[in-house]
């Protein structure tokens, strides 16, 4: 029997689109509506992978062998309590309820605690600590923003529904959609390309090779005259988002800081001594600055092109400073394009529990914060830790090889639904449920709005939720510490909502309006 579940929240990227319609048959998702291609890849196909881990595994004589859940939990707790400086890393693709238990576990162990944001938008968090951030929710931007700047990000590929749901292609209360204009331009462009091809074939001559232009789109003066929403994309290469933009600024790689610094000077009416910055003529930058100052409500979205290029968090700091300066002339906000669906939640939960969003060290008995010292990559590069727990992340596929070599020198515990690169390397490998598909919980959208993920299908039998698994590991750790006569944390760990996990609800057909039967109306 088919069941359709409405308003399912998508557990993929920071957009957390909450309008999915999922059709379930025999405890399997067979169809979905409204989701993007990335969402469909995970929710319809990806989660049914053949590589699913169904039983806990422990490495014995170099091979992973299935064991009981109790044995695996005991082994993991033993490894973590024996270690002098364990590292707990991951957290961004699990629910906030599990992250909460994770902080408690880290405090009990006196370990380092870090989340995936240290290799993505950690610099944005650090810049916010340095200078603050003028921010707005995505709803505000949807209804009011008339200038959208995508700086060093490509939402067309990474957050496919961001443009459609929250910025240029959405019909807000005060600002309309630019979708029709975009389609017109696309048709005109393809027509022009066809004409060019045809004339090339007729003339049988090679067209002259065009020199690479550093900026495209209509001249910025036109931007000011154009009515409706305007989109500016700043990037080092012409992406699909840039194709859809009104104006594209192609800057030299690693020059974001200089370009923003020049824009700040122009916004503050300062004269510049140079002719070009980052490959862009100053006159062009002046027009862009004018477009920024003359908008009614502007927003800068920045991506990993800024946080992971030369300058890291200083790039973000200067971008926030630009938004601050622009607020003297108009309304301007700035926001990071957060990647994983609950990486914002990891920052929020860690900050709520410890005071710090990531890169936390509990070894002194109290939380200490220092990115560069306690962040996973730096810590592993120096080879400081002596045991690692990875939850809902795959550093095996993404971390540099030196770091993985250092990680492999010591015991490794993994908690992942799939047999991914890091699970294959683990010494204790736990299975996990897909959160947002097989169990419910809280996740934070990129603008720090918490939303509840839904349970859509039942998980395979015997697999615990992340929250339950971490709770049992924590209990075991405390039991070992009590045996050793060491002090342990007070109070019993309780699941946030043990009975909250509900069976999928069938969608009700809309009720038909009742009509009065003939002959009875008079009575």
């Amino acid at each position, binding site marked *: 029997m088919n069941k359709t579940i409405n308003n399912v929240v998508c557990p993929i990227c920071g957009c957390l689109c909450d309008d999915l319609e999922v059709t379930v048959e025999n405890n399997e998702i067979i169809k979905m509506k409204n989701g993007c291609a990335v969402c469909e890849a995970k929710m319809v196909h990806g989660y049914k992978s053949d590589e699913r881990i169904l039983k806990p595994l422990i490495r014995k004589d170099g091979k992973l062998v299935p064991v009981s859940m109790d044995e695996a939990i005991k082994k993991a707790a033993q490894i973590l309590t024996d*270690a*002098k*400086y364990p590292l707990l890393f991951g957290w961004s693709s699990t629910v906030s309820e599990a992250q909460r238990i994770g902080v408690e576990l880290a405090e009990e*162990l*006196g*370990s380092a605690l870090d989340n995936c944001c240290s290799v993505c938008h950690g610099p944005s968090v*650090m810049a916010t*600590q*340095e200078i603050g951030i003028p921010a707005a929710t995505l709803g505000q931007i949807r209804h009011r923003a008339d200038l959208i700047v995508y700086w060093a990000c490509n939402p067309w590929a990474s957050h496919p529904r961001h443009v459609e749901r929250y910025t240029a292609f959405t019909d807000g209360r005060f600002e309309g959609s630019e979708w029709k204009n975009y389609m017109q331009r696309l048709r005109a462009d393809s027509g022009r390309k066809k004409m060019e091809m045809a004339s090339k074939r007729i003339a049988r001559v090679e067209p002259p090779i065009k020199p690479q232009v550093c900026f495209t789109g209509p001249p910025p003066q036109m931007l000011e005259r154009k009515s409706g929403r305007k989109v500016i994309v700043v990037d080092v290469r012409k992406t699909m988002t840039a194709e859809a933009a009104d104006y594209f600024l192609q800057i030299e790689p690693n020059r974001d*800081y*200089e370009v923003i*610094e*020049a824009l*700040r*000077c122009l916004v*503050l009416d*300062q*004269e*510049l*001594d*140079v002719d070009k*910055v980052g490959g862009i003529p100053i006159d062009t930058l002046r027009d862009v600055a004018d477009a920024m100052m003359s908008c009614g409500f502007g927003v800068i979205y920045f991506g990993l092109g800024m946080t992971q290029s*030369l*300058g890291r968090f*200083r790039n973000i700091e*200067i971008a926030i*400073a630009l938004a601050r*300066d622009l607020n003297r002339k108009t309304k301007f906000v700035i926001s990071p394009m957060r990647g994983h669906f609950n990486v914002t939640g990891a920052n929020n939960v860690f900050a709520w529990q410890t005071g710090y969003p990531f890169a936390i060290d*509990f*070894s*002194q008995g109290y939380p200490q*914060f*220092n*990115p*560069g*010292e306690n962040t996973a990559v730096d810590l592993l590069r*120096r*080879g*400081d*830790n*002596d045991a690692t727990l990875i939850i809902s992340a795959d550093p095996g596929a993404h971390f540099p090889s030196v770091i993985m070599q250092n990680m492999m020198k010591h015991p490794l515990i993994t908690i992942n639904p799939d047999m991914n690169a890091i699970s294959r390397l683990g010494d204790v490998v736990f299975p996990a449920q897909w959160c947002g598909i097989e169990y419910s919980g809280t996740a934070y959208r990129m603008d720090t709005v918490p939303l509840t993920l839904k349970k859509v299908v039942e998980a395979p039998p015997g697999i615990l939720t992340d929250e339950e698994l971490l709770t049992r590991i924590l209990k075991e750790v405390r039991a070992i510490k009590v045996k050793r006569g060491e002090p342990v944390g007070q109070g019993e760990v309780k699941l946030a909502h043990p009975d909250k996990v509900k069976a999928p609800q069938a969608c009700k057909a809309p009720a038909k309006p009742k009509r009065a039967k003939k002959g009875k109306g008079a009575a």
Partner: protein
Amino acid sequence: MITLTPLRTFNVPIQTPCITPENFAGKTLTDIKKLPATEGNRNITLGDLFKIEQDPAETPNITLNGDLSKVKRVGQAMKSGEIVINGNIGMHTGEKMAGGKIIINGNAGGWTGSEMKKGTIEIHGDVGDYLASPYRGNDLGMKGGLITVDGNVGTDVGCYLKGGIIKITGSAGQFLGYHMTDGAIYVEKNCDVRTGACMTGGKIVVGGTLEILPSFTIDSIKPKVKVDNTTNVSGPFYVFLGDLSERGTGKIFANKAANPALAFYEKYL
């Protein structure tokens, strides 16, 4: 003089903020051995980590020998006396130092001399990032004192510098003197990009090549510059004023001979 030598190779970070001349003063060897330290998350004593010996010589007060690259916070908040470190040392050495002297015959980790107020740090080797820069999220940079480095330094050196002098014989990474308001930094060799970003005061003297941010404007050409009372550097130097985006009046002195790429600024003089 107290000499400390590691008893074994350290695998996890060791935090020893207790190693300061004030803490050791007037204590017997047995007392010093009982001072608290941490190895990873284990609370232990100094005697578990180091072989501690006493020497009749008066200065330096403390000598550390061997590979100490995992030992953090040596000489934290020290006020007087002298520490000599023969070997590489970890992070936060001489943090919040208010007097005395630290000599490091080896490389030093990040955040050396962070939030320092007074005193001297001599490093005969390379230094990691954030030399004399404050803790994350605050603007309490180095207020006074002197740091000399024989080798190269990493990024973000002298952030939020409010006073004092940093002299570097080698090269420096990017964001040298970020947001500095006073004090002086002298780099004999080259600087990476974004030197003096967001500075509002103070001076940076660079003997080698560097790149000037668009938010700086040329002021003049000067034949020589005085770094402090003992150091005069002869040029000639281009003098740049900035950072304009912060309406600052900090000065960057860029060696004219080493920077032909900056010659186009001369037309504005």
